[in-house]
């Protein structure tokens, strides 16, 4: 068990992203251990969200690779999954290229859930017009796909599926304490509860890695406290690996085991909270330096 903990679930090697002449990410290297809580921090514009966008297939890296360990324990190149693997004559890459060739035509960002990655955004992106429960049901789409045609002929299977989905939704609503608001319109919830609902919705895609982009933004101290216990419970109960971008340093220092610091698209430090706290490079990146 202890050994399994040491396995890397995500390894990013030499990741490069450029927009025109600007290098948003310039050789980013880091890896995350399975079952850990890690944070990606850095000043504004350091490229944190760009890393997330590469993980979820919005950006196509101009170099480097992201490898993700899937549920069977195989290492999976995410670019291949999204169908954006560049063609090359390298023999190893060529076989992956042809294996994932269908994804070039039928692939897309929706395949992140197949890999087992869930994600939230900086701003709240709930489906405001839908009810709280429906928001969760949408996240279970992949688990219960292909039921429309089946449901036409075997209504019973369809109903059973609906029931399963509803009970799963209920479970998550209970976990985040929203059960009494299950039928409200999601857009009518107060801000703090919307944040919680978003995390619950992300968990409904059965992820093994969840990427939270500033989950504590706009929350008051009490709500932040609840959030950190929620994130810890995700790790303890659901055995999910958590990667978060956060500016609230007390939250980061309290719950994270590993911190990666980015600045100007490069990793300037990585390590435990203690190491990061005392790292002169990090301090200078955050506070600025006198001429060295």
């Amino acid at each position: 068990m202890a050994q399994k903990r040491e396995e890397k679930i995500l390894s990013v090697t030499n990741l490069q992203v450029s927009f025109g002449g600007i290098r948003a990410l310039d050789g980013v290297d880091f890896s995350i251990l399975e079952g850990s809580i890690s944070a990606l921090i850095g000043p504004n514009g350091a490229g944190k969200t760009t890393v997330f966008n590469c993980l979820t297939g919005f950006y196509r890296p101009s170099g480097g690779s992201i490898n993700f360990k899937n549920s069977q324990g195989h290492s999976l190149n995410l670019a291949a999954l999204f169908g954006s693997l560049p063609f090359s004559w390298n023999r190893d890459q060529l076989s992956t290229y042809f294996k994932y060739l269908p994804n070039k035509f039928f692939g897309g960002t929706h395949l992140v859930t197949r890999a087992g990655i869930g994600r939230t955004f900086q701003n709240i992106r709930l489906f405001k017009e839908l009810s709280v429960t429906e928001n969760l049901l949408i996240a279970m789409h992949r688990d219960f796909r292909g039921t429309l045609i089946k449901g036409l002929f075997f209504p019973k299977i369809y109903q059973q599926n609906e029931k399963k989905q509803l009970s799963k939704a209920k479970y998550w609503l209970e976990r985040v304490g929203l059960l009494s608001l299950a039928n409200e319109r999601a857009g009518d919830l107060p801000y703090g509860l919307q944040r919680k609902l978003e995390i619950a919705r992300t968990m409904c895609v059965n992820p093994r890695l969840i990427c939270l982009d500033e989950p504590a933004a706009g929350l008051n101290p009490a709500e932040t406290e609840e959030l950190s216990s929620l994130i810890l419970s995700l790790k303890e109960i659901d055995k999910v690996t958590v990667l978060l971008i956060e500016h609230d340093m007390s939250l980061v220092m309290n719950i994270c085991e590993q911190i990666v610091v980015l600045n100007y698209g490069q990793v300037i430090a990585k390590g435990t909270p203690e190491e990061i706290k005392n790292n002169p490079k990090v301090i200078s990146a955050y506070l600025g330096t006198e001429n060295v």
Partner: protein
Amino acid sequence: MNAFDLYIIGQQLINGLVLGATYGLIAIGYSMVYGIIGMINFAHGEIYMVSAYVTALVIALIAYFGGLPVGAAIMIALLFTMLITAILGWLIERVAYRPLKNSFRLAPLISAIGVSLILQNFIQLAQGARNQAMPTLLEGVLRIGGEEQFMQISYHQLLILVAALVSMLSLNTLIGKTKFGRSCRATQQDPVMAEILGINTQKVISLVFVIGAVFAAIAGTFVTMNYGSFDFYIGFVTGIKAFTAAVLGGIGSLPGAMLGGLLVGIAESFFSGFVNTDYKDVFAFGILVLILIIKPSGLLGHPEVEKV
């Protein structure tokens, strides 16, 4: 008001309802596509036109080989037309919309107009420019009233009303109750987030085009059987009317599309019955202008909220 007038009013109402139901069925396609990608499918009227030709062909084939009761013939024609137009709807999305997804907003509209012209001209070349005729399949009318004063509804018209009602109700269930409907609504609100949660939005968009096309086919089949005459150009005027109906009811809203269709149909039939046949289109569009001045988002549409 004497009974004679009432019967005439009733008759115009029936005509208007039937006309409106077909507009509504076509308007559904405009409204759904607009709801999900925020663009108008200008080739939609042509789907309706093609469905008229397919229906006539199937009926002609069935008549040639013979041996089928009328009800079965109608069902087969309907199902086959739905199948062909479904493929056509999928093709339009695949050819005219998907490759231009990331280009500027007007580009897909222009390519859709291109598809519309291609379809029109193809049918004109393949089937001839003249009016085509189709024999009446269901003889007979339902009469309400006495010997001299009555209103009547033919079995064909009745069929249109029933078909519109059934398909509207099933669409409502599909969108409101099923998993596919949920993913439609999610894609409509935030396609990026829907993708992250594992919904294949591309597939949803394709299916929406297909559903719109199938609804246009339902209208096309029954209207062709009712009127018995069509040409390669019917898609244009009917498409514009249905588009008007969709805007009138609030584009993006499905009950709105049906309501708008009924309103345009009834307005048209009353105006041509009591005032003037030549200016019926002017009247229908006049109502559109009036309602858009008073309520720019349409009757049942939500006003556009600026996203912060």
